[in-house]
């Protein structure tokens, strides 16, 4: 099936509330920044272009290529979008893609959309563009090689982050999910890298004007290089740790009470899901649940509102 869900689109229910909300918050902040940045640098006319680029990524994800053993990988496009359009626009484009995939195809959930956008749009943009930014202006082959490497690494980082989120939600065992995800994505990443390189080479040949202009005009500053390298290093360091010594990590998290939080205690503020005043009764539990829900909804609204204010300034 052409539109089979990619192994990175987490559905609702697989991440617990805390993890979902943390990544929603991070995503809202980044996307908010991206909107204000692109509003500054790009004219009104560029918005349709971004929409079309989003549709392009969507369509390009259909160009599957055979990976070993009958499975076929498919293109993520986050790195390519960031390289061609600049990081901020790339983030917006990927946000739109992930949102539409969730809304229209239920390919990825709504509550976990923050995490999905973060994995597939933000991390890939930071790594993809950050590393590519170091070689802008160098000779063509070096640029292509670095683009390919960053596309591969971005895929791996997205897979790693997905595994970690699943683990923190105690949906998966670290010892099993990390090697599995990284293993599959090491292959998929190669396809991603090859396609990214070939597509860039094609654009370079046919419309070099698009690449140069776009890259210099709307790209971020040197901060992206630092962020890109840092995040890449982090990914490179954590992967062997997580796959090589998962039990250690797991024990640490267990000691910190992380796993239990993840599995069934969304509200640390309300100890044991009861409302202290009312004692340990069923009613108390229910009220705790209701209050918790309101607090969360309130938090979400607050975050959203602040961001909107920031943008207006």
């Amino acid at each position, binding site marked *: 099936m052409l539109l089979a869900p990619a192994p990175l689109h987490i559905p609702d229910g697989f991440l617990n509330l805390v993890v979902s909300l943390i990544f929603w918050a991070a995503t809202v902040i980044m996307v908010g920044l991206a*909107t204000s940045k692109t509003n500054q640098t790009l004219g009104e006319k560029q918005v349709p272009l971004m929409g079309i680029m989003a549709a392009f990524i969507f369509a390009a994800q259909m160009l599957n290529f055979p990976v070993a053993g009958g499975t076929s990988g498919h293109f993520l496009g986050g790195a390519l979008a960031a390289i061609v359009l600049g990081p901020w626009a790339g983030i917006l484009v990927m946000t739109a893609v992930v949102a539409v995939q969730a809304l229209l195809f239920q390919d990825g959930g709504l509550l976990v959309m923050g995490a999905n956008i973060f994995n597939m749009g933000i991390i890939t943009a930071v790594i993809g563009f950050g590393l590519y930014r170091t070689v802008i202006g160098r000779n063509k082959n070096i640029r292509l090689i670095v683009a390919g490497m960053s596309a591969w690494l971005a895929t791996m980082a997205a897979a790693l982050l997905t595994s970690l989120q699943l683990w923190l939600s105690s949906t998966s065992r670290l010892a099993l999910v990390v090697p599995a995800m990284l293993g599959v994505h090491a292959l998929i990443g190669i396809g991603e890298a090859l396609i990214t390189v070939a597509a860039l080479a094609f654009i370079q040949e046919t419309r070099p004007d698009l690449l140069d202009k776009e890259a210099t005009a709307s790209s971020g500053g040197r901060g992206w290089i630092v962020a890109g390298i840092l995040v890449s290093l982090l990914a490179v360091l954590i992967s062997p740790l997580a796959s090589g010594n998962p039990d250690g990590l797991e024990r640490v998290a267990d000691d910190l009470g992380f796993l239990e939080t993840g599995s069934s205690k969304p509200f640390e503020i309300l100890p044991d899901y009861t409302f202290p005043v009312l004692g340990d009764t069923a009613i108390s539990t*229910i009220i705790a649940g209701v209050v918790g829900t309101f607090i969360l909804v309130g938090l979400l609204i607050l975050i959203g509102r602040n961001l909107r204010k920031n943008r207006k300034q």
Partner: protein
Amino acid sequence: MHINAFDRFHFHDSFIHRLDPRIKVVVTVAFILSNAILPDGSWLAFATAWLGLLVVNDLSNLGLGYSFKRSYIILPFILVAITAIFSPLGNPLAEWDLGFVTLIPTDFGLVRFFSVLTRSWLSVQMAILLVATTQFPDLIHAFEHLRLPRVLTTIIAFLYRYLFVLTNEALRLLRAREARSAGLPGQKRGGKLIWRTKVTGSMAGQLFLRSYERSDRIYNAMLARGYTGHLRTLNPHKMTRADWLVLILSLFVILFIQFVGWVR
């Protein structure tokens, strides 16, 4: 080919179809949120939630099994969740030695696994219902009313408009390649692997170029027909008393599900 997979909207007329899209979005999100905070193993609450889904299915004239039949989307992810069965918490049920690793399923893990699955399965069905009863442009409109940033909703609106065009374009590229992927009897076909990847890469590049240049042309075709930055629809979007009533009722149902879930 799956081009028709794009519009998941189903042309039926029903009370649910006519509801204001904002209500539907809010209720959907609330329902999914509610699933997320239900404790593991609250089977009765899950069952109540499913009952709710069945009622919505029926009210939308889609048939009772509509959303159920389409909820297989989450299947691939079950693989990921299976590992939850071997959670370190809880009491061990068995011990399987696979040589390189020893797997210990636990009671806690088992409950966890099925809870994750059920939550996901319920949430996906609600999302399916939302899309099946609301046209996508109306959905985007609703998000605009719910104060999503304009840039983002406009990008999404354009994404939707061009989705048909560009996925068609991608399908055409694939089809063109397929049509000439010939072989001679007794001869190795397909060319070298590196050439094949290069072809796929060029196709991505080609798709990019076509998208980019076509974006110019179609955007101009839109301008030529009076587009000024707002996509218009023939739907007024006014909240009626019925809309408010449904909203309040649905939220009560969701609260009730929570009640069922937390009372032990």
